[in-house]
């Protein structure tokens, strides 16, 4: 079993739809949870960052972490064609030390159709 599972999609939705993207994980030591967005032929860019459990909202984006279920979600409200991209989840432990690293999901490809 991979440490982080993410459905690669593709996911295709009409403009204005609410999009739900998810990742599950197996390592209960993960404490930092991130969502990155990657446009075609560009580098990933940080979208949302959450520490431990709970929700975080930023404009049309909401990140949720459910540590009891080892499940994280990213919701996009009123989706726009400009949201079409690959969304990658990433997470890391709280361990001190220089070898702490991000564990990445495969990424979900999203297309928002006008």
């Amino acid at each position, binding site marked *: 079993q991979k440490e982080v599972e993410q459905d*690669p999609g593709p996911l295709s939705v009409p403009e204005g739809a609410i999009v739900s993207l998810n990742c599950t994980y197996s390592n209960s030591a993960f404490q*930092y949870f*991130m969502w990155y967005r*990657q446009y075609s*032929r*560009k*580098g*990933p*860019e*940080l979208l949302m*960052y959450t520490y431990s459990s709970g929700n975080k909202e930023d404009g049309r984006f909401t990140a949720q972490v459910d540590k009891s279920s080892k499940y994280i979600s990213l919701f996009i409200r009123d989706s726009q064609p400009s949201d079409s991209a*690959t969304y*990658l989840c*990433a997470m*890391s*432990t709280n361990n001190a*030390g*220089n*070898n*702490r*690293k*991000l564990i*990445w999901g*495969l*990424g979900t*490809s999203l297309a928002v159709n006008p």
Partner: protein
Amino acid sequence: DTAVSQTPKYLVTQMGNDKSIKCEQNLGHDTMYWYKQDSKKFLKIMFSYNNKELIINETVPNRFSPKSPDKAHLNLHINSLELGDSAVYFCASSQPPGDTQYFGPGTRLTVL
């Protein structure tokens, strides 16, 4: 100002050649990374340096040799290029290690 920059952006070369990719960050971060992203878009970490010291080496063939002359620069040299090395290589930096990472624009390597 570009936070993390890479050169070159595109690299097309023949099998067996040696090539280098350069990365620079102006964020003041101590930690830098090299990732490989294959055609299926999976991001695989290759190396990580913290303050010029190698801290992560993820079972990468020894044809790949990273070098960090200072904490703002991390270069990747690849010897005897193979077809399977074709991918996009991303440089990233963070402060501290394992925390939010900032990525460069990528170097698209094609080995013919």
